[in-house]
């Protein structure tokens, strides 16, 4: 076994680019899936039954599927549905958003449900509208309970972005796998890939722990 770790250093530009795409993908997905989750959670609570039913179906479906399957499915189905040829990046982003919005909706729903009914009534009793009560009373309180779970979801999402590599989105995993197959430096590149994920993911995991300690589990 002869190892040549110089390949990692030589590929630093590409790997850095891949890592940036990974971060971009994570951030963009979250930026879409947080409002998406709130909207879905509100739809599930809607008094208009078809809306609630649609949201429930959406959430349960995309929460209970392997993400890899969702990625493939989006890859084949989206162009037919939308009649557009979407880039792998957009397709991967869509699959991630469907998945994470479904998760976030559950997070927000339980956060909102954890606020006592009396808080809503107190807001209504001074003449606030339901929308005002939601924005000014419920959401700010639910936020504290939701934030730790969102942080955990963020870390899971960061890891899950590696799965869009199967449809050739140029993020970290795909980049590293490409270099591996071109250079035949399999052990070196795969180890480097793991190490880079670790370097990026470890602080995020620790930050999540901190957020849990600061906000979590306080009644």
């Amino acid at each position, binding site marked *: 076994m002869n190892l040549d770790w110089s390949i990692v250093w030589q590929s630093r530009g590409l790997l850095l680019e891949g890592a940036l795409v990974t971060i971009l993908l994570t951030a963009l997905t979250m930026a879409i899936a947080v409002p998406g989750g709130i909207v879905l959670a509100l739809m599930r609570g809607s008094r208009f039954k078809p809306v609630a039913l649609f949201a429930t179906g959406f959430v349960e479906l995309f929460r209970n599927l392997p993400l890899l399957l969702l990625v493939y499915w989006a890859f084949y189905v989206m162009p037919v549905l939308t009649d557009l040829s979407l880039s792998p990046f957009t397709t991967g982003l869509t699959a991630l958003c469907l998945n994470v919005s479904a998760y976030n909706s559950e997070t927000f729903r339980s956060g909102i449900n954890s606020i006592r009914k009396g808080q809503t*009534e*107190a807001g209504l009793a*001074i003449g*606030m509208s339901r929308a005002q009560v939601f924005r000014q009373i419920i959401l700010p309180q639910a936020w504290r309970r939701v934030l730790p779970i969102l942080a955990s979801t963020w870390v899971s999402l960061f890891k899950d972005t590696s799965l869009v590599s199967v449809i050739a989105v140029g993020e970290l995993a795909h980049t590293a796998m490409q270099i591996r197959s071109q250079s035949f430096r399999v052990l070196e590149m795969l180890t480097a890939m793991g190490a880079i994920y670790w370097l990026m993911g470890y602080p995020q995991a620790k930050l999540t722990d901190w957020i849990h300690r600061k906000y979590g589990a306080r009644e």
Partner: protein
Amino acid sequence: MTAFTRKNADKPPVLVYEDVRKKYGGFTALDGVSLHVNAGEVVCLIGPSGSGKSTLLRCTNALETIDSGTVRFEGKPLPKADADIRKVRQRMGMVFQSFELFPHKTALENVAIGLTTVRKLPAQAAEERARALLAKVGLADKTANYPANLSGGQQQRVAIARALAMEPHVMLFDEPTSALDPETVGEVLNVMRDLAQEGMTMIVVTHEMSFARRVANWVVVFERGRLLEEGPPQQIFEAPTVERTRDFLSHLGWDD
């Protein structure tokens, strides 16, 4: 029975309940309640828990909907549309058993929030009003405190100030002292008594019989969703005409 004239009996009543009925599944919470409240009156609703007095209060500002009957506020039946209901609620202040202050807002912000969001008052003006109201309930020095840093009695006084901020025509109190430590009950009752002396129309669901006896103009006894008896406090507490009223009061140690 001696003749008793209710306060402002010559003027149209503020609130009229006509044959109000309300069921929760198989449980009948209100079984045909008819009642009226005149301007400036303090009406205390008493009775065993689960007898429907809190439900009636919550139907008054449409936090609960009634199954049949009518609730008239200032001559008009409660509206159905959300926007109209909101206008009515602004004219009724409500104080909850569990305070329900907003924990993410300071005492001052709790009092001001209705003024800024519902009345659309400028922040400056809302703050001034809120400050004055907190002073009125004896909490001028607690404006910056969050609810978590206030005692139960202080929180309930903030809640009263929050309701008063909307300049209500009637105040609804839902067991305002039931969740309080005994030593802070008095400070809340004092604020309520002062309010009554200023002529505020008040409906108070309470287990504080001494308050009902001393402050109320009219006392209504509930049992199983019906009116058992109503009358001036002297009658209810000293010469109840219904046997079961006597039973209820004697359970609470009011058998003179």
